[in-house]
C-alpha cells in the first residue's frame, strides 16, 4: 500500500496538471479522429475530366489483359500436354512441326477472290474463297439450317467474322427475295392432330385450385395447367436452393419454365413470405454461398474474403461496405441471409 502511495498517488497540484494533460489529449484525439475518419480533402486541384477518361482507358485495358492472360494459360496447357506426350516416347514433334509449317503456308498463300453472292444460298467452299474463316462459315451454315434468314445486317452478328472481312464483302451481297416454300406442311398437321387425340384419351386434368408457393410440394404444383413431373420438380428444387420466394414473379426465373406456362399458372399463385428460410451468412463458405442462385462465384468470393479480412458481419448492413455490389442487390440478399441463425 505504501508503494502504491509513493508511486501512483498524486498530490492535489499534480492532479490538476495531469487533468490538464488529459484534456489536451482528449482535444487532440477528437481532432485527429475527425481528420482521419471524416475529413474528405478537396480534389479541386485535379482535373476530374482527365480522371474519368483514364478510368475508361483502364477499364478497356483490364479486359484486354484478362483475355491475354486467358490465352497465355491456354497456350501453356497445350504445350504442357505436348510435353507429356513427348515424354511418353512418341516422337510427335516432327509431325507437329510439319502441321505448324503447313498452317503458316496456308495463311501466307491465302488470296481472296470477290464475287457477288447470296448469303442464304452460298456454299461453304465459296465462302472460304471470299475469305470468311472456316469457323464463321460453319456458323453461317448452322444459322441457315435453323431457319434463319441472313441479311447484310445480320451477317455482322455472326460469330467469327471480323470487321475487315465484313467491310470487304458487303458491297457484293446480293439477296434475292424468295417465296416461302411449302413442304412437309401436311405431314406436320397430321402429326399434331394425332398427338392431341392421344393426350385426350389419356388425361383428364383436375380443375386447378389456388396454391401457396412457399409450401406447395410437387403434387400440388402438378395440379396446375402446363406443369408436370419435371417442371414441378424444377420449381421445388429452385425454391429450396433459394430458401423461398418473396414474389410470385420469381417462379418465372426458374430455369426452363417457359413464359407461356407461367402466364397460365400465375392467377393461381399466392405467396406467404413468412415461410422464407434465412441462412447465416457468417457460417457459409464460398461454395455454400455459390449454390444460391442469386450469388455467383465472384460475389461469393467477394463476400467471404471481406469477412475473412474484417471478421464476421455484425449486421446485414455491413454488406453495404462492399464495393462492387449494388444496393439493390444487397437488399435482395438481406431477404435470404441473416447474421444470426433463426
Amino acid at each position, binding site marked *: 500500500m505504501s*508503494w*502504491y502511495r509513493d508511486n501512483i498517488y498524486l498530490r492535489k497540484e499534480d492532479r490538476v496538471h*495531469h487533468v490538464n494533460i488529459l484534456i489536451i489529449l482528449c482535444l487532440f484525439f477528437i481532432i485527429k479522429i475527425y481528420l482521419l*475518419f471524416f475529413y474528405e480533402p478537396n480534389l479541386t486541384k485535379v482535373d476530374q475530366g482527365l480522371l474519368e477518361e483514364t478510368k475508361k482507358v483502364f477499364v478497356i485495358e483490364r479486359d484486354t489483359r484478362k483475355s491475354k492472360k486467358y490465352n497465355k494459360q491456354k497456350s501453356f496447357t497445350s504445350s504442357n500436354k505436348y510435353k507429356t506426350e513427348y515424354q511418353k516416347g512418341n516422337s510427335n514433334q516432327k509431325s507437329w512441326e510439319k502441321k505448324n509449317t503447313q498452317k503458316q503456308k496456308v495463311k501466307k498463300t491465302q488470296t481472296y477472290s470477290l464475287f457477288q453472292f447470296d448469303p442464304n444460298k452460298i456454299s461453304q467452299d465459296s465462302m472460304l474463297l471470299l475469305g470468311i474463316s472456316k469457323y464463321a462459315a460453319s456458323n453461317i451454315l448452322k444459322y441457315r439450317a435453323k431457319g434463319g434468314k441472313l441479311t447484310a445486317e445480320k451477317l455482322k452478328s455472326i460469330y467469327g467474322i471480323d470487321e475487315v472481312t465484313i467491310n470487304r464483302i458487303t458491297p457484293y451481297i446480293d439477296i434475292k427475295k424468295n417465296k416461302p416454300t411449302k413442304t412437309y406442311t401436311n405431314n406436320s398437321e397430321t402429326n399434331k392432330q394425332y398427338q392431341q387425340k392421344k393426350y385426350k384419351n389419356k388425361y383428364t386434368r383436375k380443375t386447378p385450385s389456388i396454391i401457396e408457393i412457399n409450401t406447395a410440394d410437387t403434387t400440388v404444383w402438378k395440379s396446375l395447367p402446363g406443369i408436370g413431373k419435371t417442371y414441378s420438380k424444377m420449381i421445388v428444387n429452385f425454391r429450396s436452393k433459394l430458401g423461398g420466394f418473396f414474389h410470385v414473379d420469381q417462379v418465372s426465373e426458374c430455369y426452363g419454365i417457359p413464359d407461356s406456362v407461367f402466364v397460365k399458372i400465375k392467377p393461381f399463385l399466392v405467396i406467404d413470405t413468412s415461410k422464407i428460410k434465412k441462412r447465416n451468412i457468417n457460417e457459409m463458405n464460398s461454395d455454400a454461398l455459390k449454390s444460391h442462385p442469386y450469388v455467383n462465384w465472384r460475389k461469393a468470393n467477394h463476400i467471404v474474403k471481406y469477412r475473412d479480412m474484417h471478421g464476421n458481419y455484425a449486421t446485414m448492413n455491413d454488406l453495404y461496405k462492399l464495393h462492387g455490389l449494388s444496393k439493390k442487390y444487397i437488399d435482395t440478399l438481406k431477404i435470404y441471409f441473416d447474421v444470426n441463425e433463426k
Partner: protein
Amino acid sequence: MKNNREKISLLNWPKFPLLRVLLFFIIGILIGNTYNLSCRTSLSFAGVLTVFTIICNHYVSGKRLLANVVSLLIFLTIVAYGILAICIQKPQNQPLHYSHHIPGEYMIVGRIIEDLKKSKSVSTLLDVIQVDGKISKGKLLLYFNKKDSIIEYTVGDIIAVDGRIIPTFKNKNPKSFDYSRYLKYNKIEYQIFVPHQAHILIKNRTLNFPYNYAYDIRKWALGVFQRRLSDEQHLATASAMVLGYRETISKELYAAFSETGAVHILAVSGLHVGIICLIFSLLLGLIKSDTKKVKWFKLLVLLMVTWSYTLITGATPAVLRAALMFSFFLFGTFFRDGSNTYSLLATSALVLLIFNPYYLFHAGFQFSYLALISIVYFQPKISNIYNAKSKVGHKLWTLVSVSFAAQILVFPISIFYFHKFPTYFILSGVASVFLATFILGLGLLLLIFDQVPVLGDIIACVYQYLLDVFIGIVYGIKLLPFHSIDGVWISLGSMIWIYIIIVSVMYLVSLAQTKMEETIKPNYIKRRASHIILTIALVGLVYNNIIKTQQTIGNNQLIMYDYNGGSIIDIFNGKSRYTIQSDNIDSNKVKFTASDYRLFMGSNKNDIIELNKKSNKGNFCTDQNGQLLYNGAKFLFASAIKMQDSFPQNSDVLVLSHQTEILPYSFLDYHTTGKVIIDSSISYANANKWKKECNKRSVPVHYIREDGVYLLLTE
C-alpha cells in the same frame, strides 16, 4: 514515526513530470497492439473515463482514500488513450481507408511520397487519394511492372494506377525478419503490383508550401555533389550523410559500415542534427551581446536551421524525432537554465508517440532513445574515472566515454536485431563522430561556395581527401582481425532479462549510501527489493537459456523453408547441420529465409548434401534414386526423378519443387505416398492442380506457401 518512513518510490517522480504519463501511455499502446479492440469500444472507454475522472477530481480534495482512487483513475485514462491511439491507426477501423475496396481491380489515384526505389522492379509509396472515384486514405506500397523500364515520377506527383490491392506478403519462416510486420509499423498493410503500362501521370509536382522548397533544395544539392564528387563511394557517403539520400549506397559499402559499427553515421539522425546545430550555434556565438532581442534572434535562427534541415533530409522519423528533441532542448535552455534532460527525452517521446504510436516498434526509435538515455546517465560517470590533463586529451576522452556509454544500453537490442556485435566500436565511434563533424561542415561549405570559382574547387578537393580518409578508416577497421562477433542469437525474453539486470544493477549502485545518510534516511527496503529483482532476473536469464538449448541442440529436426526461388531443406542433428538445396540459390535472399533460424539453432558444422549420391550421416541417409531416409520415413524428392529410369514405387513423403513441373499430374497413379509436400517454388496454379490430384486419391497435402514451413521434430 510517519515522517521517518522510508519512501519506496522508484524515482523522485515530481522531478520528472511526464515520465509516468509516458510509461502508462506505452502500456496502453502495448495493450492496444496485442488485443484487437474495436475503435468504438476504445473510444467510449477513453471518453467515459476522461469525463468521470474530471468530475471526480473536481469533488475530491485532501489526502484520503478517494484521492488515491482518483490518481489511479487518471493513469487508467492515460492507458485508455494509449489504446485509442493505436486503435485509430488500424486500417480496419478507419472508415475512409482504401482497404475496404479489396478484393477487385480498381483505379487508384494517389500522391507519391517517397523517392523511387530501383532494384529489380521500381517501387514507391503512394498516399491514396481516390479509389474507384471514392475518396480514400492510407499508404500503399506500389510495385511497377518490370517491363516498364523508364519510370520517371518524382515526389509529389499525383498518378493514377490500375490494379488489384493485396495484403503484403508475410515471411512464414520461423525466427526470421518479417518485412510485412516492418511495413505494418509504417502504416502500410497492403501492396499493389501495377500491370504493364497501367499507370499515368495526372498532375505534376503538387507539394505544399514548405515541402516543395525543401525538395528543390535537396535536388539542387544532390546535383552539386554529383558534379563535384567523381568517385561513387564518395558521392554515396556524402549524399547519405549530408542530405539523407541513401539510394546510391552500394551493398559493399553498407556492409563495411555495419560490420564496424559506424552505420548510424550513414543514416541522418540526431547526431547530424546536433552537429548542424552546434556549427550554427558556434557561428552565432560570434555575436557578442546578450540583450533579450539577440537571444530571441538566436533561438529563432537555430529553430529555423533544425527544421529546414529536417525537411531537406526528407523528414524521416529519425530526423523528425531529433529535431523535436532539439527544439524542446532549445526552448528549455532559453526559458530556464539547466533543464532536465530526462524530462526532455520523456516529453519528446510522448509527443512523438501521441502522433504515431507505431514509432514505439521502430528499431530506430528504440535505438536512439536507449542510446540517449545511456549516454546521459553513464557518460558523466565514465568520464569521471580518468581526468586528462591536456585539452586534446580531454576532448578525446569525452568522445571515447560517449561512444562507450552509448553501447551499454544499446548492445542487447543491437544483438537482438542484428545478431552481431562490432568489437572496435570505440575506435569506429570516435573516428566517425569526429570526422562526421568535418564532413557535414565542409559539405555545407561546398554547397555554399559551389559557384565561387577558385574557392569551390579547393573545398571540393579537400572534401574528397576527407571522404577518402573516412572510408579508408572504416575499411581499415574491417581488415582488423575479429572486427565483429557474428552469429549471436538472443531471444526477446532473454533480452528483457538482460535489461532488467542492467537497470537493477544501475539502481543498486545509485542507492549506495554513506553511514551518515543511512541514519538519516535509510533505504534498505529499496536495496533489498532490487537485490530480489536482480536474482529473479538472473535466474530468468539462465532458465531462458536452458529452455533454448533444449529446443535447439536437444532436438533433431528437418525443416523445409518457405523460399520461392528454389527449395532449401535443413536437417539439424545436435550441433551439426546438413543442407539440401537446389542449384542456383541467391545467397542474399537466404538471409531472409534460413540464416536466422540457423543462428537460432546454433549449429556449428554444416555440410551440403547432394541428392542422387549415396551418403550416410548419423540420423539419415540418401541413395542414388533421390530418396532420403530420415527417422524411419522415406522422403522422395521429385526433382531427382528421371522419367527414363525406373523410379521408386512408394514413399512416405513426396516432395515437389519447381524443377518438377515436367512431372505429369498423373504421376500419382504409378506411385503411392503417405503425404505430398509442395514447395513454395511452385506457383499457386500448378499447386492447385496437384492438390486436386491428391484430393482425388485422398493424400494429405502440405503447400508451404500457404501452410508455412514444414517442420518434422524428432525427440
